């Protein structure tokens, strides 16, 4: 539109202002916060402008910008948006300001803190719009750096271990991913996602890879499969997929709560995004070949993490496992879409559900972490499941709003959490009935641990220690209220988002080679 490179502006605005914010004097906290929020709001406005100007009927990439970068390696500056990218941008534009607003209690070196958040936002915007592997990888890694420091410098008692574990686990995955795409580049001479997907669609990618690595004598299909596993590892760690999740509970628990909001709200989506944008279109056949084990892993992710959440006593750890559980549904949907049998209609339903679930989980989970942040502010850091009790009587508004978010997470119809999971199950059931059935206990256990949480914290006799527990303040309300409203809006009128993603998803399904 108007020839303005909106996506580039959106990406570089936070990065540039981040550099400015780093330079703000340590004592001028309000200035740093104000600048950060101003950029956040501007970014939200830009995303809204993109949203309004997008052509919803067209599922293909829009707003493309393309420049030569390193011609000898086929590397271009190539950005663009489709429905998925747009929804992810919106999520990042919503969650980051929420996290910044929830950071009132951070008083130490505020400019650095705020600058890192802006840096993170810029990195995320870049990663969600890049269409060339090199360009995408740059932002994918770039978003790790601020997250590392936010955990390392402002986290809980075990922050050093948490930050290191987070970074190293992700890096292991990233290197595997990098090697896989370098091999694809060798075989095809391109790093471009769209070109690679086109090659996969015409079933030319597999043979090209085989031809390049034929001298290894691995046999038909093997090299393509190995590359798929490498790339899979990168995203499986990020989402995470069981058994690559072990870094997550410690990280989410030790990170300062606003950072946990950003981690679960947006950064984990980077992983699911990779599954949808890269793995499914570029490796459809290997994904199909490994379908059964992958589905088992997704089912294990869903069910085991729900049980693990049930066993936790720390509120942040419960939410961390719940996050793994919810993203497990997304992966179930993606894998099921690669099933050999099934109609385009079912695949579309499953993938629509996946994208919707990504957005909804982003909003709900970050809202929940936000409530835990408020709870911690009042309890001087206590956040054990058994530390509270009966708070409903002294803080009814707090309780009511957090309860809503919890019910949304549980998947209550009428709230946003329901529709995504419903669509996923609606799609997965006809595609691979057994996986859908096996995943169902996950839903049940989720209900149990969420109700337990409500019961232990809010109901029962009032714990006398918290007799003077203050209710939600206006400032806090201002943070959570818009998100709560959004939960209702999306729950009742999901069409608002589906209108944007459905054409894109339909487009992908047409592109699949089976």
């Amino acid at each position, binding site marked *: 539109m108007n020839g303005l490179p909106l996506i580039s502006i959106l990406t570089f605005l936070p990065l540039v202002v981040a550099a400015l914010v780093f330079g703000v004097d340590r004592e001028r906290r309000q200035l740093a916060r104000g600048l950060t929020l101003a950029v956040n709001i501007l970014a939200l406005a830009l995303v809204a402008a993109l949203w309004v100007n997008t052509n919803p009927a067209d599922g293909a990439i829009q707003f493309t910008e393309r420049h030569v970068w*390193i011609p000898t390696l086929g590397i271009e500056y190539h950005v663009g948006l489709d429905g998925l990218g747009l929804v992810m941008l919106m999520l990042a534009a919503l969650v980051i300001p929420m996290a910044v607003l929830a950071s009132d209690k951070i008083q130490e070196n505020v400019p650095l803190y705020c600058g890192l958040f802006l840096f993170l936002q810029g990195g995320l915007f870049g990663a969600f719009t890049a269409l060339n592997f090199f360009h995408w990888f740059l932002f994918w890694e770039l978003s790790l750096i601020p997250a590392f420091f936010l955990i390392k410098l402002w986290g809980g008692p075990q922050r050093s271990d948490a930050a290191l574990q987070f970074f190293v686990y992700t890096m292991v995955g990233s290197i595997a991913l990098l*090697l896989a795409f370098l091999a694809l580049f060798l075989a095809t001479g391109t790093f471009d996602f769209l070109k690679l997907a086109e090659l996969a669609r015409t079933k030319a990618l597999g043979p090209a890879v085989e031809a*390049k690595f034929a001298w290894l004598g691995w046999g038909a299909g093997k090299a393509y499969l190995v590359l798929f596993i490498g790339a899979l590892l990168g995203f499986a760690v990020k989402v995470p997929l069981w058994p690559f999740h072990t870094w997550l509970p410690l990280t989410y628990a030790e990170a300062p709560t606003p950072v946990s909001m950003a981690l679960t709200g947006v950064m984990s989506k980077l992983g699911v995004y990779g599954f949808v944008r890269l793995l499914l279109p570029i490796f459809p056949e290997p994904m199909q070949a490994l379908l059964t084990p992958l589905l088992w892993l997704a089912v294990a992710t869903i069910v085991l993490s729900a049980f693990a959440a049930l066993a936790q006593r720390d509120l942040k750890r419960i939410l961390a496992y719940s996050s793994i559980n919810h993203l497990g549904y997304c992966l179930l949907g993606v894998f099921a879409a690669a099933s050999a049998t099934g109609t385009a209609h079912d695949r579309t339903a499953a993938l629509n559900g996946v994208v919707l679930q990504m957005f909804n989980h982003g909003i709900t989970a970050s809202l929940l972490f936000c409530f835990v942040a408020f709870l911690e502010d009042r309890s001087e850091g206590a956040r054990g499941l058994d530390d509270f009790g009966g708070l409903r009587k002294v803080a009814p508004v707090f309780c009511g709003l957090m309860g809503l978010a919890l019910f949304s997470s549980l998947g209550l119809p009428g709230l946003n959490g329901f529709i995504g999971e419903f669509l996923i199950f609606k799609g997965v059931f006809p595609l691979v009935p057994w996986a859908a059935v096996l995943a169902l206990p996950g839903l049940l256990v989720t209900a149990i641990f969420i109700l337990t949480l409500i019961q232990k914290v809010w109901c029962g006799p009032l714990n006398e220690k918290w007799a003077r527990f203050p209710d939600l303040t206006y400032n806090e309300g201002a943070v959570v209220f818009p998100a709560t409203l959004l939960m209702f809006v999306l729950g009742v009128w999901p069409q608002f988002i589906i209108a944007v993603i459905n054409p894109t998803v339909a487009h992908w399904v047409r592109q699949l080679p089976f």
Partner: protein
Amino acid sequence: MLAWTIYLSFAGALSCLLTPRANPRATRAVALGTALAGLLCGLMGAVQFKPENGLEVITHIRWIPALGIDFSLAADGISVTLVLLTGIAAVAGVLFSWNVEHRTNEFFAFFFALIGGVYGVFLSLDLFLLFVFYEIAIVPKYFLIAIWGSTRRDYAAMKLALYSFIGSGMVLIGMLAAYAVSGLASFDLQTLAQHSFAPEFQRWAFPLVFVGFAILAGMWPFHTWAPTGHSAAPTAASMLLAGVVMKLGAYGCLRVAMTLFPEGLKMWQHELAALAVTGIVYGALVALVQKDFKFVIGYSSVSHMGFVLLGLVTLNEVGWSGAVLQMFSHGVIAGLLFAVVGRMVYDRAHTRELDALEGMGLARAIPFAAVTFVIAGFASMGMPGFSGFIAELQVLIGAWQAFPKLTVIAGVGIVIGVVYTLKTTATVFFSDKPAPAEPHAHDHPLEPITVPERLGAALLIFCTVLIGLHPRLLLDLIVPSFKSPLFDGLRKVAGL
């Protein structure tokens, strides 16, 4: 223009020596002027240089006609890249040696003798001349460490010199053999490269010359001089040692061993790749367990130079251009790391023990050093956006093509690199350990970072980010170089 870098540096060395010992400021001014003039010559030469012409002869003077030895200098994109690196390292080295008070004039005289030798190696076309410059570069090295060094400096200086001389001895034998066997009565590299040596001769001559040079590039298992030398050397010397001297070795491998004996490379390709990858992983693992801050960086250099060697032996153009870019990139990044460790931290804290540094709260005391080290650390671990990434990316592409299994192991090396870099950064600068109640820690706050240090760090950071984001600046120089006749033999063997 490029040839002036050599003359200027030697002239600078002499001028520095002639400045009065009692007036270190004058010496510093001369030194900075010389380094800047060298960098400027390099830059102007790079701008005027036309990479598509391949190897461009700059100077050709008959020297010892009877033996076919000429004073001939030439440059292609590879030389220009490395000349630029040398210029940058020289300027940064002077800036980070601003606090040298002990025999300042001699220090800078040796410094520029070394720099002049390095420029000479990168620009020599005549094999004999190249060897002369190569030796000139080694001698000042010894004195810089032995006179101005720290921990176990005599041992380190001796070890470095011995390893270097053994390496050059091997090179000399190979070189003379090539001269004799070819029967061309010429030391001209281009002439010799046109001659196809018998495969049986190449089988032993190639490893002799390659390993001879690779010793100076820190190839495992001949790397042990590097960490001790780096640690003992004064800051500027470590910067030069890791930044450019190790590149001399890699450059020699590419320019001499590989162009003269391409078939030898093909015969030994897999063995050398295995050594390179071992160096990558071993260097990273050893860095992980070091207790001395400078040793961590020293071993990380061994690990990163492994990528250069791996790139060289891939026998494809992506790998080669990755290797050359990695030489540049590592020169800048290692310079920066050593500057932080040696100048910013050691000169203030007077210790390099990680355990001792842990309690000092350095991120608060000298935040500039912390920020610089964080940036250098991320650049060094191969974060996209810095020069190291694009270089290692190309090496890995090249290696995937040639040795897929070793490539995966090299990937493991990168991950270990991430771990030790993060751990060291966290320990030294961002430790949670409370400061010990030692009295002197509070009585003498660390002096603030000086202006020359800031300028030097800014220069190096600028270079790594610039090349990281816009690698074409160098790639457009490097890639066409491999088309020149000098590389005909290699291209033929590689099937390109």
